[in-house]
């Protein structure tokens, strides 16, 4: 297992475990609909225990979670699995976040309670890496309300002084102003690390996908200049860079026919020396085995390979897919829609080399979102999902577009 160093000199594995897509008893990931149904998360603790043990056995030492993940169960489940692994607390690094997204969680007292809860759930008395969660999501004003006006950031710095938090950092999505503000105040807060979305598409094209974004290249270079280690999230774009996609395979396969698409994407991220850890939300044991292999040791990409990845990125952008990574931040939709599945369904169809017939598409749609009432047509357009989306997708607009498309297909099918 290739490893890098934290700012305080600890060894850390280049592959990190992202506890956002935990395995469920039906073989899907937490929040998926299969069998366990829409009402329970159905996390498979036994499998999770085995996975965490496997990861630790193979030298993976970085575990990233949040109080918001998996309907709020992630921390507790991860804590249980780490305790069951038999490893000592000093053998691994826990990263969790101050996920005070809702206005009722802005007050400092609530934030403090959230931190104490994290400690309790994770069965520890200190957090190695503590993050301000998704700064910039919802705009600079929200950032200010969440961390500055309520004194939460100053309190976090105090936690670090008390050694209850070893490293302080932030994860960034959204408004560039928040990112710039944090870096401008680096002298004051001395960030120990920073978590950004980086992969071979966002490297040069994040701004192209959404004008509000900053390219990962810019973020990385800015952080490297300040000597802040970088933690990477969404190296696979929620699986969009890992699932078979003709556009990607066409560019990458000739260079290494045996490598999976996921391996390509992970190697890209690991190539950069200031990257401390690449987080991957691995749901299945097979994902874990494959990724551990990719990183043992990691082979950095050559210039020619980087060029091929850039071509693949451009090919992906041409498909005009919706940049949804199924992170579930938008969920639960108050009107019961299965937003990530709807958007992902659209992407699936767009990624096919030839588009299926109306009848086939409708069949696939019914399979992708099995409950009628969770399909696109039931969107009320209330827009309560929008501020939560770290990719800044205008969700109601996309859903309306998908509904219109499905309607066209239905009419086409019924008109025959």
């Amino acid at each position, binding site marked *: 297992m290739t490893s890098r160093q934290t700012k305080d000199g600890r060894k850390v594995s280049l592959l990190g475990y992202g506890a956002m897509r935990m395995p469920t008893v039906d073989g899907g990931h937490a*929040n998926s609909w299969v069998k366990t149904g829409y009402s329970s998360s159905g996390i498979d603790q036994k499998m999770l225990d085995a996975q965490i043990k496997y990861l630790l056995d193979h030298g993976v030492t970085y575990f990233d979670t949040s109080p918001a993940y998996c*309907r709020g169960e992630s921390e507790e489940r991860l804590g249980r699995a780490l305790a069951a692994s038999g490893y000592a607390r000093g053998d691994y690094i826990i990263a969790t976040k101050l996920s005070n997204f809702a206005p009722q969680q802005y007050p400092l007292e609530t934030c403090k309670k959230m931190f104490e809860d994290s400690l309790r759930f994770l069965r520890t008395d200190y957090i190695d890496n503590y993050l301000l969660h998704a700064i910039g999501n919802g705009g600079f004003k929200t950032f200010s309300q969440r961390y500055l006006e309520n004194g939460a950031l100053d309190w976090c710095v105090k936690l670090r002084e008390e050694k209850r938090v070893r490293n302080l950092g932030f994860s960034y999505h959204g408004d560039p102003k928040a990112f710039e503000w944090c870096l401008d105040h680096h002298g004051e807060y001395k960030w120990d690390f920073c978590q950004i979305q980086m992969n071979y598409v966002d490297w040069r094209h994040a701004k192209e996908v959404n004008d509000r974004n900053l390219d990962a290249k810019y973020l990385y270079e800015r952080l490297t200049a300040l000597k802040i280690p970088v933690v990477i999230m969404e190296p696979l774009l929620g699986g969009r860079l890992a699932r078979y996609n003709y556009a990607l395979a066409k560019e990458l396969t000739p260079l290494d026919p045996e490598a999976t698409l996921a391996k390509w994407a992970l190697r890209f991220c690991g190539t950069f020396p200031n990257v401390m850890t690449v987080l991957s939300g691995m749901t299945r044991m097979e994902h874990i085995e494959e990724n551990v292999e990719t990183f043992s040791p990691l082979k950095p990409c050559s210039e020619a390979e980087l060029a091929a990845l850039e071509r693949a990125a451009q090919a992906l952008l041409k498909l005009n897919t919706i940049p949804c990574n199924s*992170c579930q931040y938008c969920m639960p939709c108050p*009107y019961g829609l299965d937003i990530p599945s709807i958007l992902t369904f659209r992407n699936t169809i767009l990624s096919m080399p030839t588009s299926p017939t109306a009848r086939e598409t409708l069949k696939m749609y019914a399979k992708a979102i099995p409950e009628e009432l*969770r399909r696109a047509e039931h969107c009320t357009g209330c827009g309560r999902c929008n501020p*939560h989306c770290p990719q800044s997708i205008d969700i109601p607009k996309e859903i309306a577009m998908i509904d219109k498309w499905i309607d066209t297909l*239905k009419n086409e099918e019924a008109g025959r």
Partner: protein
Amino acid sequence: MKKALKIAISAAMLGCVTAAFFGAPTYLACRIQPSATITFLVVLLLTPLVGRLFCECLCPLGIIQTAVNWLFHPKTHVRRVCTRLPETKAQQIVRWTVLALAIVLALTGFGAVAWFVTPYSIYGKALTLFWPGVGLFALVAVLAALGKGRIWCNWVCPVGTLFNLLSKKSVCVHKVGKGCGNCRACFAQKKKEEEPVPFVDGGVTRRDALKGVAVFAAVKAAEKTTDGGFADVSLPGVPARPVPALPPGAVDRSDFNLKCVACGLCIANCRGGCLSVSTSLKRFGQPEMDFRHGYCLTGCAQQCAKVCPAGAIRPLDGVERKNVHVGHAIWKRELCIRETEGVQCTACSRKCPVGAIHVVEGFPVVDKGKCIGCGACEHVCPARPMPAIFVKGFERQRIVRPMDEAGLLAEMKALIDGGASCVAARDGVIVGKETGFGVKSLLKLLDEGKLAHTFVVAKVVGRAAAAICVVGKVKRVYASIMGADAAALLKAHGIESGADKTVPKILNHNLTASCPMEQAVEGFDNPVAIVKELKEKAK
């Protein structure tokens, strides 16, 4: 030989009828239904000659009873003789009472109930999982399994009674030997204790079943704190419609109620998933719109009318189909989540396929002139337990007649004057309207496939626009200003054209030089090549 033929016909019929309920185009089979069709008359006339042909080989219930008999009592000859045995007194009383009751019900306007006990209706309802129908169907099978032949046909079925009467003097029928004293000993098997017939009755209507469903639990104002998970969802209730909404083509409601035999074929074949079984006593088993699972698709080729064996749903031709209004939407303020939850919901107006719902100052306003009563708004309305917008059916469906030539041209010209750059109409109905740059908007219509067989009115038509019309298979073009070369191009491809003013050349906005689009296509003769060039340029 005769037996093999009978089995073959029976199997084919049962297959056809069943397949029809799963969308197979077996229209012929469907029309054997005892309704006032020619086929029915033929069967009726044949019956005195060949016996109960219908009950034996055509009726799905009859065939199934025979099959069940054969399965349960393979060795007895009861099966063979039972239908020819002399009737007992009790049997006569029961069957004639049922028939009389059916006639009385039909005459007093409760025909739907009478139709419900007819074989096709029972079979259809069983296939569409309407529980009273499934119950009756099970009863028929159980009776047959108990071993006394086709008891339903011979004791209850009004259609059976009718055919029995007709076949009394039939020449080809088997007769029981002369000595028959109606002892019934031929029911061979050891006489069992009279078992009570287990009445397998679902008895639960879909509406009852829904009462148990939890009320819709929308997450209210408090913001969510964790990611993932799903809010509870539940189906809405069915609003008490003053008038039920019927499928397009069931033009006159009372006429429809009279003709419909409640076979359930339309329900099984509805592509929008919006037809359901009525539980009202007067229309029991007949179809009516229920928008909980779908709504009437505007583009649907009227699958319901295609399969209707009774002619109760009339197939409408293209123009009529597109302009039939089956009802209109009514909004209830106190139910709307705008009032109950303070959410600015736009579901109904977004979903409306004809753009009949406008949001004015946050309130949905239904344009009743445009509303076709398809139920899309009701289907997507998030209000629970009852939708806040619902469709009230019409007693008589409204078919908005398309405009005549002159009226259409005037209307389209008015749209052009109002800022549109091109308008397309088909069969007297405006199907497309675009604003913006002339050639680009025509290209857009072309890409959307809206130009075929249309009458196009545009502001300016040069060679570029003319080529698009040729490629789009437009029938007729009218322009405020038309280039002479454009008119020639259209004429060469057999497209009629007209204009307020014809000019030798289309100029640019400042009238200083020739139009850039015209310059771009200079030198190209083939319309396909011109369109390709234009598309390149548009990029």
